[in-house]
């Protein structure tokens, strides 16, 4: 029995189809990531799996239980952290945790060992109202509350959105520690670079899954040679490469521009010569390996050409 399995799930809000026939499974003890921008359908999938929404078509099972028929059973065994901070802002840190413990018929002490690594960081502030916490601390509190009843499956909807890079990094470290407790975790994020933190990911766009695999294998599907190009003036560089007859894709990427070429065999010199012929002084052209973001954009473009 897989902790999470979704088969051909559809969900519409009025005329808008948010989830267009999605299927995926998550193995026990895995950290599985749904990666995609806002509007990809990530939150809808979370709400279906946490029994908050019924799929229009298809089925979804959590711990082998149907999300529509057995919703009461599922609610006892899963932990959920919604995308928006949903704890009581007018209760203190400790009161929030104690409240959610009582809701699940347990106490803080009974499950302290599980939340200890996270909650211990909050304990100095346990009398502070939740509304007065910083973004990173709110997120730790929400995770503590979602874990207080030792759930078998943990659903985390965009836990790192709007949180600064330091807190984000810490958060992922906490998730890796939880994995060791054999908790299955489904997590979503709009930050492409966080895909590497997951065991497996589903890249999502516009209600569909573009690709499911381990992050390494997904980037291997990017077949073309990718070039990172840098010059003094980035805007001009983009314009020049766009008008290059062999250009396949041109995307700004940090201080570089990522470029693929239509030709089978292409050398860095070819591109350099072209740029120099246009008056660019000293361009840097380096062959690089694509990352998830390059691959995601490639998959998006392919999807659009199919349509």
């Amino acid at each position, binding site marked *: 029995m897989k902790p999470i399995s979704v088969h051909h799930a559809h969900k519409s809000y009025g005329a808008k189809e948010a989830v267009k026939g999605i299927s995926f499974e998550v193995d026990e003890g895995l950290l599985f990531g749904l990666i995609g921008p806002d509007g990809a359908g990530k939150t809808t999938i979370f709400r279906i799996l946490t029994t908050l929404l019924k799929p229009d078509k298809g089925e979804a099972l959590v711990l082998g239980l149907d999300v529509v028929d057995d919703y009461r059973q599922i609610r006892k065994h899963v932990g959920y952290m919604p995308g928006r901070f949903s704890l009581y802002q007018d209760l203190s840190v400790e009161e929030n945790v104690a409240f959610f413990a009582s*809701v699940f018929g347990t106490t803080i002490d009974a499950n302290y060992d599980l939340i200890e690594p996270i909650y211990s960081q909050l304990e100095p502030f346990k009398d502070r109202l939740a509304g007065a916490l910083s973004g990173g601390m709110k997120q730790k509190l929400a995770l503590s509350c979602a874990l207080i009843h030792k759930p078998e499956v943990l659903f985390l909807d965009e836990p790192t959105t709007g949180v600064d890079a330091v807190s984000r990094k810490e958060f992922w470290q906490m998730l890796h520690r939880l994995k060791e407790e054999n908790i299955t975790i489904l997590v979503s994020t709009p930050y492409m670079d966080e895909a590497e933190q997951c065991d497996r990911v589903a890249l999502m766009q516009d209600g569909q899954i573009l690709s499911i695999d381990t992050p390494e294998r997904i980037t291997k599907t990017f077949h073309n040679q990718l070039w990172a190009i840098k010059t003094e003036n980035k805007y001009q560089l983009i314009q020049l490469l766009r008008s290059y007859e062999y250009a396949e894709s041109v995307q700004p990427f940090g201080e570089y521009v990522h470029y693929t070429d239509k030709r089978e065999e292409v050398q860095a010199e070819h591109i350099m010569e072209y740029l120099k012929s246009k008056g660019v002084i000293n361009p840097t052209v380096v062959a690089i390996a694509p990352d998830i973001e390059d691959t995601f954009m490639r998959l998006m473009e392919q999807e659009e050409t199919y349509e």
Partner: protein
Amino acid sequence: MPNEVNNRIQNKIAAFVGFVVKEFKQIYRDKRTLVVLFGMPIIQMLLFGFAIRNEVENANIMVLDASQDQVTQELINKIDASNYFTVVGEIQRYDKIDDLFQKGNIDEVLVFEADFARKLQRGERPSVNVITDASNPNLAQLIQQYSTSIIVDWQQRRSGLPNEQNSGVVANANMLFNPQLKSVNLFVPGLIAVILMLISALMTSISITREKEMGNMEILLVSPLRPAQIIIGKVLPYLVLAFVNVLTVLALAEWVFAVPFRGSYGLFMVESLLFIFTALALGVFISTKANDQQTAMMVALAGLLLPTVLLSGFIFPISSMPWPLQWISNLIPARWFLVIVRSIMLKDSSLLLLWKETLILLVMTLGFIVLSVKNFKVRLE
């Protein structure tokens, strides 16, 4: 096995208690709302009791006495002697009345027909025309009622037996149970109804929709809490608060305004509790339909509070409403509660007399509870 069942029940109770404790903490921490909750009844009570008096005090009267005999003089003196009226002077011509009212100093003119005393003696029914400045209709109506009842009273004393053709039933009723015609006596029951509506229905609906709006409900739903636990947990604190307010208003009425309380306190408490339940059920029902606090507030204020103030008989008597409004007023719980409270407070009515109104409230309450349970969503859609 029985142990496991015991455990489960214990867990359920612990979860419920945890919920209620959380609710009380939240109410207690929201100091501003707390001040409003406890301050409002007191302020409203003082406002209605002292400021917004619907009583006539020293209304200015002119007399047009075509008869000029001893009887009319006696009647005029009696009216002048009352606290409500001051006879300012006399006029001679009927067509002066308009001018008089235009100037705005005179509220009423009494017109006695000629040969008043003689007609009375012959057993005829001489007429007094009571003409009021109706630019303020409420006041005009009151003045008219007051002066009519003084005349009727005078006539009864004079003849020694009630003259049925002349006695105004409305005036008589008022005189009987509210002899000083004090409006505060009538306002207290209405005020209790308004305050209970406000606290019970408005506050519960807002507090439940706030959980939806802040996203808390999303987590509560994905937990083993049952809808009944959530609803009762939400309602219980407001039941207590509302009841405290009933006692406050009652205490103020007794000790500050000396409003008579003729009936049974026990019955009054039970009926108030019933009405609180009606209002709470209404509040829960609103919150099952509204998704944010703003909607809940609008519905509660426009849909509950206004009708409670305007159509329940609190300010405007139902009998003087046009029939569509009279019909609508039947649907307003406060209308029935008002009848109950006024009867208990001013007339010492027993449950035997009030069973119909009580039954109506009971049916309404059950109806709203059934609707709420049916409409409570265990999911987000």
